[in-house]
């Protein structure tokens, strides 16, 4: 079936099987490989993207379900002038990534979390990231990056 979705501001239209999950629509039809698949039970959050600005796990959404809506992936997060988004920036400055596999999902989840609560506590961040798994960092620097990004975003406003 033909499915139109706006991905990172670009109108995409692809003919895919009805059972196609959003993550495979993004990876295989649109060709954006930044969004990763880490499990098959909606547990790990590696595939997290923004749907109309809010985080969703794209392995648990059918592409057909979000026809006509707006999706943002890691490839679409950088600022218009090409600089990294404050969340991306904070991840590098705080060493919030190692192997990088959970990173796109983490960055999108935190972007959504900070939109919801611009001034979160450490505990709020930790609970908010419960659905995003990382095996490398022990989460310490991911949480630090989220806190640093919240400050950077506040200063920007």
């Amino acid at each position: 079936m033909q499915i139109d979705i706006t991905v990172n501001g670009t109108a995409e239209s692809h003919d895919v099987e009805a059972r196609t999950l959003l993550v495979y629509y993004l990876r295989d039809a649109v060709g954006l490989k930044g969004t990763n698949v880490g499990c098959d039970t909606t547990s790990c959050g590696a595939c997290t993207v923004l749907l109309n600005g809010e985080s969703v796990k794209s392995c648990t959404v059918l592409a057909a379900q979000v026809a006509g809506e707006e999706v943002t992936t890691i490839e679409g997060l950088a600022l218009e002038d090409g600089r990294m988004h404050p969340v991306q920036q904070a991840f590098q400055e705080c060493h919030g990534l190692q192997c990088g596999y959970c990173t796109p999902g983490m960055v999108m989840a935190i972007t959504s979390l900070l939109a919801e609560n611009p001034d979160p506590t450490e505990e709020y961040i930790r609970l908010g990231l419960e659905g995003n798994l990382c095996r490398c960092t022990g989460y310490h620097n991911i949480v630090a990056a989220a806190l640093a990004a919240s400050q950077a975003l506040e200063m920007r406003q």
Partner: protein
Amino acid sequence: MSILGNRVLRREDPKFLTVGGTYVADLALPGSVHVTFVRSSMAHARIVSVDSTYAQAMPGVLAVYTNDDLGLPKFPTIMGMTNEAMTPPMLASGTVRYVGEPIAAIVAESREIAEDALEQVVVEYEPLKVVIDPVKARTDEDLLFPDAGTNTSFSLDFGGDETLFDDCEVVVELTLANQRVAPCPLEVRSAAAHMSEDGRLEFNSSTQAPHGVRDALATFLDLEPDQVHVVTPDVGGGFGAKGAVYPEDIVVGWCAQKLGRPVRWTETRSESMLGLGHGRAQVQHVRIGGTREGAVLAYRIEVLQDTGAYAGFGAVLPFMTRMMTSGPYKIPRAECASYSVVTNSTPTTAYRGAGRPEATAAVERIMDLFAREIDMDPAELRRRNLIEKDDFPYTTPVDTVYDVGDYHRALDLALEVAGYDDLRAEQVRRRTAGDVRQLGIGLSCYVEITNGLPDGEFGAVEVRPDGKVIVRTGTSPHGQGHVTAWSMLVAEQLGVAIEDIEVIHGDTDVVPRGAGTMGSRSLQVGGAAVNQAAVDVVEKAKDLAADLFEADRDDIVLDKANGRFHVVGTPALSRSWAELAEAAAKDGTALFAEVDLASPGPTYPFGTHISVVEVDTETGKVNVLRHIAVDDAGRIISPLLAEGQVHGGIAQGVAQALLEEVVYDLDGNPLTSTLADYSFISAAELPSYETRFTETPTPVNALGAKGIGESGTIGSTPAVHNAVCDAVAHLGVRHIDMPTTPVRVWSAINDAVTGHGTAKGGR
């Protein structure tokens, strides 16, 4: 000023953060077909038949292959040490021995078709008796390999000295489980293969050891190593479990050869939970003895290692456990014996620490019980028995030679950072008040071995006429940050900007040799090789400069602040690296050095971890309040990366102590085969950590560096475990096995308070 020891941000990051890494599943491979594997649903059974008629007839299915079709040999033993009868076949041959064992490979035009075809393959089984408990396996009552006549795959039959504990006033014993856990890298196993136009096998692998994959493919597929080209793109974590070559890798290569089409395979997470090797899986019996004044005199550990269904690397993990038997303590007499047995479960393999965390877990848990028995503070008992800094090099009773250390310094610093006395006072307050939430304080002093299976490593540095520096390394990072760290090492030697350095790894055509990244070896061997190549290339540049300046070779100076060479006393007349590379090119050579560094031998990082937990005595729930880690990995080249390694290790240690366990039922059915069922630790269960480094440089390598990749796991696991047991010790609980889940902790408290038997796991 030196760049080493500074907090240099990772050069790898911008790509990961803006477009994501390039993992095997991301690689474009036009026209590729997909492999999936029919896997056993039985833990132990004879295969009566495999009927793939329906699957083969499905549109889009190219082929279904069983082991007979492949005609490939079995895997070899591990270094000739494991039982030859117990090595795995490529695909199941006649008998299946664990749930998830690959039986047949399906090749189809798309992954979806291949998965649909899976359901059309009918396997008929004749069930055999299932052996899932390693204790039962050791009795040899039911055999996995009847021809072998035993379930024992490997043993280290040392010890048995009857007089070991003769002069001990106090002897304490414990049987404890070091449970089976799943490594769970976020990226599952994945491979892609095709034949190049000139007939070579091109192979992409998510591995820790690309050259190992190349050599295995060549051996199994009867090719010369140079007919195989392995490229390892970004790898989404490994933790030891991607150090081995798996049957699926070889089958993917075989299919590409057989079909002449590009082939790719990416397992699902649920497959990965059964197919990727598991870690730990030991049952330990330990005995410690000493005086009432706290002098430990004797220690014995007996290890029962669960190998899983076939004897792979998991079988020889006790080798490492034995090397670290007596930990950081000066125990006059110590012994270790081990028996590895096969069971109807996923084969075990290396997992972050690989045999050493198990050694530390045993000695640290029994040290706490010994302290309790003689009514001494556990920190004081440790202080009285730690090896002194003047004792190095120190030879242990099992003949392991520790290089260098200052174990007391790490303990003292950890106690200071923790505010140990105040914590104990708070614990007394809560105990006296009978608070619902009791405080537990757990210590772990550790020493471990890194680069324990000594291999050498390849490193090369080339300066090009455009001023760019090309570094090639035999290590194969999967999150460790070698691009940044090796750039720092080379920048330090050459006096160039790290932006001008390119680091190449994971391509067996460009990097001729390499042992890969495992066992915390990379910096101390691979980094040292790159460092040596950089030193050598400076020497070569000085030769060239001497010719150009028509000066004495010994008068040539490299001004590292500017990256320029001049004759001593005349800095105004100088040549850049690019100019010297240009001069070399004109001579028809290159400004280049490569090094095959022989292994300098293992090093022994050490430290002390302290965990502070709160246990809700009404629910058994454990909350980790603080984790203090003092680690000494010799000289720290990159504090940013070193800290990151410790952080990740701590989380995996807390995970094993509190949450994670691979569970099978008695019929060998896995009960934790998805990430919904397996308690993979999340941010919500962890605090931020308090990390410190002491630096005691090792004389073993030129960098003074020891490994840091696994220390966090080794130090943290027993600290957290001891903290949980400590929190409820005053209620009469002696021991709770890991993972100390709420139900286990609650049961232990309940049993102790009501006087009913021993809690589950409290053997």
